[in-house]
């Protein structure tokens, strides 16, 4: 079972310096958050999708489409319910509130997809190195990448445990929410314990490989800014600066939205 989002492909995006990739992701976030109107957010989404297509990482959408779909529908409904506007639309929801819900849900999905593209094109080690080069202490960067690494590991453990418990007759799929929650105890206890145990070995292995032995360390992974990095950053700025100008001109908002 493949446990990482990272896709080992040799595209122009994969070859970028990790700092560029981090900045591209941050740029995508800013661009997404500038506007509220779904039509405008959709433009940001389009840019992110083009980025994903160029890096051949959209195949990972298959792995997270369910989360995206759930967040999109739930987000649209909830945000729409908790805001209002002058134009009636469906039931208690006004047109402006609906646009607001849609816009916010799109924002969340766009940012998740931008994050997915980043993780699909950047190795764990590159993330750490990029952060270190941007001034983040190595230990902090390493801790963050460890957290990222832990998610798939825990997933794999839970998968094994759920098979063991299903073999003993545990039926995880029936009953109401509370019953089902209770049924998860046989999964949670062993998952928690084996995670602690493997984290312990991980800690020992780190120490045993001289983690933090010297104040500075070599980086075997070689990174550096090349022409492509400058081109990508220029494109990003070329989109972001006009975007900020339009935002300053109060464009991309939802007129008449009163409560949020």
């Amino acid at each position: 079972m493949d446990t990482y989002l990272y896709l080992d492909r040799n595209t122009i995006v994969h070859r970028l310096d990790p700092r560029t990739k981090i900045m591209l992701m941050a740029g995508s976030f800013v661009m997404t958050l500038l506007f509220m109107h779904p039509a405008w957010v959709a433009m940001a989404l389009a840019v992110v999708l083009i980025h994903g297509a160029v890096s051949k990482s959209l195949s990972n959408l298959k792995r997270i489409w369910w989360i995206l779909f759930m967040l999109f529908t739930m987000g649209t409904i909830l945000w729409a319910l908790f805001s209002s506007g002058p134009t009636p639309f469906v039931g208690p929801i006004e047109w402006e509130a609906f646009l607001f819900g849609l816009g916010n849900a799109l924002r969340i999905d766009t940012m998740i997809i931008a994050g997915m593209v980043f993780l699909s094109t950047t190795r764990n080690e590159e993330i750490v190195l990029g952060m270190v080069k941007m001034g983040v202490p190595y230990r902090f960067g390493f801790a963050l990448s460890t957290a990222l690494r832990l998610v798939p590991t825990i997933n794999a453990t839970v998968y094994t445990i759920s098979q063991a418990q299903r073999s003993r007759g545990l039926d995880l799929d029936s009953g109401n929410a509370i019953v089902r929650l209770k049924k998860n105890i046989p999964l949670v206890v062993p998952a928690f314990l084996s995670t602690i145990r493997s984290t312990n070995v991980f800690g020992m292995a780190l120490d045993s490989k001289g983690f933090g032995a010297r104040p500075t360390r070599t980086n075997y992974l070689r990174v550096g800014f090349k022409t492509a990095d400058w081109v990508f950053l220029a494109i990003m700025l070329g989109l972001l600066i006009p975007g900020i100008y339009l935002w300053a001109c109060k464009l991309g908002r939802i007129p008449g939205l009163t409560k949020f």
Partner: protein
Amino acid sequence: MLSIDIRDLSYRYRGQKTPALQSINLQVEEGDFVVVMGPSEAGKSTLCACLNGLVPHFFRGKFRGEVRVLGRNTREHSVAEMAELVGLVFQDFEAQLFSTNVALEVAFGPENFNVPWEEIDRRVRRSLSLVGLEGMEQRAPATLSGGQKQKLAIASVLAMEPKVLCMDEPTTDLDPVSKLGIFAIADELRRRHDMTLVIVEHETEEAAKARRIVLMKGGTVVKDGPAHEVLREVDLMESIGVQPLGVPQYFHAMGSSELPLTVEEGVAEFQARGWRIDEAAYEALRRRDAERARSYGEPIIRVEGLSYSYPGEVNALRGVDLEVRRGEFLAIVGQNGSGKTTLVKHFNGLLEPTEGRVYVDGQETTKQGVYKLGQKVAYVFQNPDHQIFSDTVYNEVAFSPRIRGCSEKEIEQRVKEALEAVGLVGMEQEDPFSLTKGGRQRVAVASVLSARPEVIILDEPTTGLDYAEQRSMMELVSRLNQQGHTIIFVTHSMWVVAEYAHRVVVLKDGKVLLEGPTREVFAREDLLRETFLQPPQIVSLSNCLGKTLLSVPELVQCTRTGG
């Protein structure tokens, strides 16, 4: 010069009543090759952890005495500082690999020591070629086989160019030939690089390659000497729960004062003494095999043209046909990644065939589902800790009947039965997590027995157990078989197969390569080796003598010494 110098070392983990190590004195010369053996809780892993300072820096506890490695006192230097001198490889290879590709994994250690880039590059290439992983630089560690992962873990430690390499049970999860591969690497290191090697190992056939063997028990050293001397201490090894080597054990049992160590020496000694294999006794064994085979019932599991592929991966199984009859005791063997676990997961419906059909009790598994199949086919997972979650042994064992809606009285009866079967009566109110690994394994078996299944599948039931625990586990499984349960188990341990299984299925690359009664399968040594398997020493000896005998008692029984 002394490489390792341990004086009067005692250590007790915080919160433990008994010390893990007591008054250990051990001196190891540079370039020596020491294997440490002993039962569970002997203090072997703690000793390893002392060498690079994990004890006392990482673990908390009471430390007395002194450990020096190449003159450096472990108490005065951090683990990271010691790491330059002592490389430590752990048993759990999954948890010690954390990079996204092989080259980066190997580079991690030297990176931490600020080694120049060109030098790291050289070391990465050299370490990988030493362990036989060249050309795999860009592979993700997760995609490697078990044996390759352990080799990678070794390479990642070698890249730090330590003077001492310590490996804590590095071969536990590996198939026999991968085990030999690890020891071949060890030998190479010692000869070419004059590295001091300390390896904790519980399988004696591997340990025989060492120059010196240290036997430990209860935190103390009970014997320390040249390997050829220690391996002849058959009684001592048995008494502390370490499996003696088959060949010397056989000659010892025959009352011989001369104890050969290898198969070749054994054959020569056997012939020199003018001993012969007793044809009549051998025929009696074969007749017993045949009788047993006739006593099996109707087929309970039938596999037809089974193929299975995990999403996005190559085929794990390719056209397997197999029949298991009621009352059989079947071993499924094969190298790491040959499809053993994938195959047995079809028997209780955890996996559904990509192609072909699996029938249990005459009905297709896809039509029955895991819940229903669970009453007929029980599955004990390799790691009991993936299964145990209750606060008492009773509740753990009661889980299955409870979930199936049995009455409290019925549950009580079933728990009693199951605990009797595994020998844990009286432990009902114990916390399962407070038991040893062997004890937890028993709880795991009891917890599936309480569903009263006909078939019991065990995935690597002896992994991580010491010799005495392995024996007692397999005696338990054997008893269950005699009581009428059909047993199917997956294993790497060849002596367990030889002594307990009635029939063996050998898988290679997802196909059945060889199948038949244990005696017939072990007679095909050449073919077994093709699948990275090797019969136990005693079986090899008997094969060289022209007959296949599966254990020391069998060979003793069939030996004619006079006229």
